[in-house]
């Protein structure tokens, strides 16, 4: 949801290492990041910060998973990948390696998927030899069951 970006970011992990020289903090072990309706789960997250606050997050896992509510709908979008880069300035999530994006019954697969949680816009990139078979983008868009169709006007 768009409102997520104005919410505090909470993080939990088994251990954290803060390196002041490299200006990097590394969260390890069952790492959970939450910001409003956005949840990101990974084995490891590396964070950089600037004067205005938290800047970028690089998460790796088996896989990394994220989940966020869609604006104005009682629906969630979910993503999975070997690595997810999260830019807290642009609210952009970059799913890299065996990337999957799922919303309801619809699913996208590709080597890399960029998703902007502000605009709801996403871009799928295929790549030869990448995780997904043949490296091509695969999309499964399920037709809505007839019961859910709007009733025909008499």
């Amino acid at each position, binding site marked *: 949801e768009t409102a997520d*970006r*104005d*919410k*505090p*970011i*909470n*993080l*939990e*992990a*088994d*251990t*954290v*290492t*803060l*390196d*002041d*020289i490299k*200006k*990097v*903090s590394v*969260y390890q072990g069952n790492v959970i990041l939450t910001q409003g309706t956005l949840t990101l789960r990974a084995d490891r997250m590396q*964070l*950089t*910060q*600037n*004067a*205005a*606050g*938290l800047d970028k997050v690089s998460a790796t896992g088996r896989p990394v998973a994220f989940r966020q509510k869609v604006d104005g709908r009682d629906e969630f979008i979910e993503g999975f990948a070997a690595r997810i880069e999260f830019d*807290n*300035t642009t609210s952009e999530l970059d799913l890299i390696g065996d990337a999957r994006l799922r919303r309801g019954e619809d699913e996208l697969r590709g080597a890399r998927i960029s998703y902007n949680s502000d605009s709801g816009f996403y871009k799928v990139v295929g790549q030869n030899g990448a995780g997904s078979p043949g490296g091509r983008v695969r999309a499964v868009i399920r037709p809505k069951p007839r019961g859910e169709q709007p009733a025909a006007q008499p």
Partner: protein
Amino acid sequence: MISRGSLWLPLAILLLLAALSFAIERAVQVTPAPEHAAESDPEGIMENFDALRTDATGRPQYRLSAKRLKHYTGSRLTELELPRFVQIDPEAGEIRAAAREATISPTGDEVDLRGDVNVVRAAHAGQSAMTLRTARLLVFPEQDQLRSPGPVDIRDDLLTVRAGAMHYDARLRVIKLSGRVHTRYLPRRN
């Protein structure tokens, strides 16, 4: 992540003030205890002392005060009641450290701060005030290391960190937090 040199400054200062307390204890002549005093009795006691260290120009740098300082012949330990450390530095801003009690090892290589350990860096030049709270803080001046074996709570206006334990290496400038760590970053200020 705690940046802007914030957490490092208060913790680094503790190393200095730990060494200072040992130096003061060595330098000051405490009133010797009577001959028949048992080994477990303090050899010397100093009450309500306040030591100020200045630079070459006489400008105050650090202040160490305590309700009571006791030095023991047998164990060669030194105990401080209600120690108060203050670093007075116009550039870095004032940093205060306090505890209910502190024990200094015979060679001064370990200072053990116990009970309501509180390190506060005052707000200064674009940096908010920062507070570190823990029940116990072990300071190892010669190794430039600090360790808090129990829960720590660190906060400034943008960030809150709670952890089960902390280890700080001032030479590497690395803090390790463990024991399920919880951090909270307040929304970005654009």
